[in-house]
């Protein structure tokens, strides 16, 4: 078996046992990236020298008998929305194409402290806004199972690099489904932790009350390992939880007994691809065979989830993205041309005798803001900034933002009630499988509906996981979603692993190269 087919746990143990060096493992992945990523384009940036240097350091520490942490020498890909000191952190935006942060995200520090080797930064929808990674201003990422299709998004690069065997572990972010949906499209495992479980410090904010960082991997135990490394309280993030972090990787293979699962009828209604429904039903049968009881439940307010989400997330985004104004860092419009333009406009108005209009001309500062933002942001980002700005405007705040917050509370209480009777909610991750590139470009609403089953977890702040549970006739992966109460990652991972022990979907790989 080649190195890039080993699980992260196997890699780590081989490195610890001296069967393999971290340098050799890292080199194997760099070679794979070299061979396959020109097709997939999952990485925005790979710094091979830096990765090998990190790997050698881990090897040296191991050689001198030091302990190297739970990720000891395993290469890891990072979504390019997390700050890495001195290295490009583009957020897949023209606005930050040249931006190099002065600090590391807490999660990046934690990965390093646990002995992980940073391989590179993966592609995403600009500022994580999108569900196909087509909104990247940097490049188009393709689905390794079918290069004519999208990998999902926004963590499309994060899912595609694992699916393509170009990283054993990868870190993504999930605001409305951005880890789970690409994991489902690419046939890998993706976990969205409970809000507050993983520090957001250094995660470039999209919607602060919804964003969470989480792991992607082939297997549930590998995802458990990475979550263990990155979870925990951070004094630099006021919203991070102080609860202790269980050793997920040590309990993940312990099956749960007498599991109670509930499937929401709202997640099996019109719009669900029958092939997806069939695979999810089959997955439910697997759980039945393991002794789980499965009942129909209802999340009565889930039909409002998309509407609430597309008010709350853009509102926060409109504020979070205000800082990209060209004044301090990032993209700034050509100033000479700007001044020339203003001069021409003024002269034209004066020539036409429109002196009042001259007074209304932008100041150079205002024009600099306008042009820098107009040129630096892509259309989906602009759309969301406008929606959010509108929703927060005086006169509309109560009708939109405040109303959305009320719906959010109802959605949360839906889950609270459901979890009084069942341990987990089970169902599809997405209504459909990976769609062809360009298919939804002109139809943002259809794309927003991809989030139908996933946004609830973000609005409620709970944890959920996407596990591969089959493939369509045309060979496209289908994902199974399990949702659990807040801070129940330990049991959620165990439940998900039970499925993988019984099935082999996670062992199937696409052919690349």
């Amino acid at each position, binding site marked *: 078996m080649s190195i890039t087919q080993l699980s992260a746990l196997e890699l780590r143990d081989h490195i610890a046992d001296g069967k393999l060096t971290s340098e050799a493992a890292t080199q194997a992945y760099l070679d794979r990236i070299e061979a396959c990523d020109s097709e997939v384009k999952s990485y925005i940036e790979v710094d091979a020298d830096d990765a090998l240097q990190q790997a050698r350091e881990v090897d040296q520490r191991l050689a001198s008998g030091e302990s190297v942490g739970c990720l000891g020498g395993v290469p890891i890909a990072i979504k390019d929305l997390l700050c890495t000191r001195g290295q490009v952190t583009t957020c897949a935006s023209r606005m930050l194409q040249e931006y190099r942060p002065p600090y590391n995200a807490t999660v990046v520090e934690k990965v390093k402290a646990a002995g992980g080797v940073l391989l590179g930064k993966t592609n995403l929808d600009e500022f994580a806004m999108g569900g196909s990674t087509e909104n990247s201003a940097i490049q188009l990422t393709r689905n390794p199972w079918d290069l004519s299709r999208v990998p999902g998004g926004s963590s499309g690069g994060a899912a595609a690099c694992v699916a393509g065997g170009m990283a054993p572990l990868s870190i993504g972010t999930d605001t409305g489904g951005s880890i789970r949906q690409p994991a489902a499209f690419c046939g890998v495992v993706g976990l969205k932790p409970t809000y507050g479980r993983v520090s957001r410090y250094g995660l470039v904010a999209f919607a602060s009350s919804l964003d969470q960082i989480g792991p992607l991997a082939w297997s549930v135990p590998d995802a458990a390992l990475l979550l263990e490394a990155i979870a925990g309280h951070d004094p630099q993030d006021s*919203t991070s939880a102080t609860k202790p972090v269980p050793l997920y990787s040590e309990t993940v293979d312990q099956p749960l007994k007498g599991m109670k699962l509930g499937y929401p009828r709202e997640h099996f209604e019109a719009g669900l691809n029958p092939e997806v429904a069939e695979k999810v039903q089959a997955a439910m049968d697997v759980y039945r065979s393991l002794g789980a009881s499965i009942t129909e439940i209802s999340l009565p307010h889930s039909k409002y989830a998309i509407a609430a989400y597309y008010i709350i997330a853009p509102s926060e985004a409109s504020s979070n993205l205000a800082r990209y104004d060209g004044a301090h860092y990032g993209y700034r419009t050509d100033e000479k041309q700007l001044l020339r333009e203003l001069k021409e406009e003024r002269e034209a108005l004066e020539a036409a005798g429109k002196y009042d209009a001259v007074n209304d001309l932008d100041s150079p500062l205002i024009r600099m803001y306008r042009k820098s933002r107009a040129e630096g942001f892509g259309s989906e980002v602009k759309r969301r900034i406008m929606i959010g700005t509108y929703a927060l405007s005086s006169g509309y705040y109560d009708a939109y933002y405040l109303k959305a917050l009320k719906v959010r509370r109802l959605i949360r209480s839906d889950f609270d009630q459901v979890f009084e009777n069942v341990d987990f909610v089970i169902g599809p991750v997405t209504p459909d499988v990976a769609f062809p590139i360009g298919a939804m470009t002109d139809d943002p609403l259809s794309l927003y509906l991809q989030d139908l089953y996933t946004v609830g977890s973000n609005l409620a702040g709970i944890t959920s996981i996407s596990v591969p549970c089959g493939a369509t006739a045309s060979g496209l992966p289908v994902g199974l979603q399990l949702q659990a109460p807040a801070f129940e990652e330990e049991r959620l991972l165990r439940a998900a692993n039970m499925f993988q022990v019984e099935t082999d979907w996670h062992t199937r790989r696409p052919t690349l190269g």
Partner: protein
Amino acid sequence: MNPPTYEIIIGLEVHVQLATRTKLFCRCSTQFGASPNTQTCPVCTGSPGALPVMNRYAFQLALQTAIALNCEIPRFTKWDRKQYYYPDLPKGYQISQFDLPMSEHGWLEISDPEGAFPTKRVGITRAHLEEDAGKSMHDEAAGKADSRIDLNRTGTPLLEIVSEPDMRSPLEAKAYLTELRLLLTYLQVSDCNMQEGSLRVDANINLGIPTDDGEIRTPIVEVKNMNSFRAVERALDYEAERQYQVWQETGHRIGDVPKQTRGWDDQLQVTKGQRSKEESSDYRYFPDPDLIPVTVSEEQIDEVVKKQPELPAALRERLQANYKLSHYDADVMVNQGRSLVDYFIEVADRSQDAKRATNWVQQDVMRTLNETGIGIDEFPINAERLAELVLAIKNGELDSSRSRDVFQFMMDEKPDLQAALKALGIEKVDDSVLVDLCRTLLAANPKVVADVQAGKQQAIGALIGQAKKQNPNVNPGQVREICLQLIQEMPS
């Protein structure tokens, strides 16, 4: 024309930088005067991904101030984002408090020692915490129209204290500011340095004009850019007069025109209209999702109340009640700050002579402090030494006519009473020596004796001068007394 009769209505917004070592949401220093952009970090520069964490000490100082301003403290308060674009605001929003401020509904009592207006309570609408912005420096001199931004100040904790429109004259506005600054100084929550921008004042002013159809109100104007309390008083004086004239010309009432902002030009002593914000700003306030709400417990409030120092108003009352100071003197003393008051109290307590202690502290000590520009903590004569001096005078060991020399010696040479007395050759003259001296003087001045016997007692004055010449330590009162006694005893 009759003098204008109108009522001036003033409300003030005061921004106070709180005296924390570090900023409100990060650990950067708040020290004033460092090189530009050296006290910054990813949080206060708004770097992508950085998150704020509240400085608990700043909240504590705000709580102390709000309680001293008699505010109600809600048990729950939260942070909101106030959104606008300006280069000195690197996040594109300011973290502030909107609908649930950390305190509201307080008051501050103001009075005028000379009774220019009756003592009154000015309502405090609210006091809330927020982060300061950076500083823009516009260099238009070089013709380059170059602007530079210093983000050192960004994130410094600010307490915004908003008053009700309860002040009825610029003098009352000044009294409010003076009393507020004094309170903040006594609480040690801010250095209140207006030059360095740690205390900034904006004023809202309009007029109530009685007419035949009842009182009408003129449009409210916000006045900014006032760099001293004196400037506030003058700007408001000017603005009241200007608004009256504008009203006479236009008849505009409140609501007829948008709220205007005017800046005070200290050189020209006028207010000037600032570029009116065509589109009235919509700050799109919403709760900051990066920060958790703050809960304040009963115990926390009790703790602050327990530790609250004696505040100026209470101290003034104590000085009047226990030390018999006049309202005016108490005011002067308290305005000098707590350490001078403590100094005075120690002198008065040790000497058990509040009257003399008052005179010495208010005249000689304060004059010297003013002349030398030093604070009472650096004053060479400590309270114990000054009390000794006061006691010596009180006990008649030191004649008041020579006490200033002693004070000066203690100031200049050595703050030691006995050393001063010795150096100046001051000692108590023995009674028998004094009687002998008087006898000699009377014998040598028969005309004085005759004048006194003829009823002109003031003639004794000539002898006092001669006595002091012969022995500078004699007490003039005693010389007078003994001489009169001796003359009375003479056979006529």
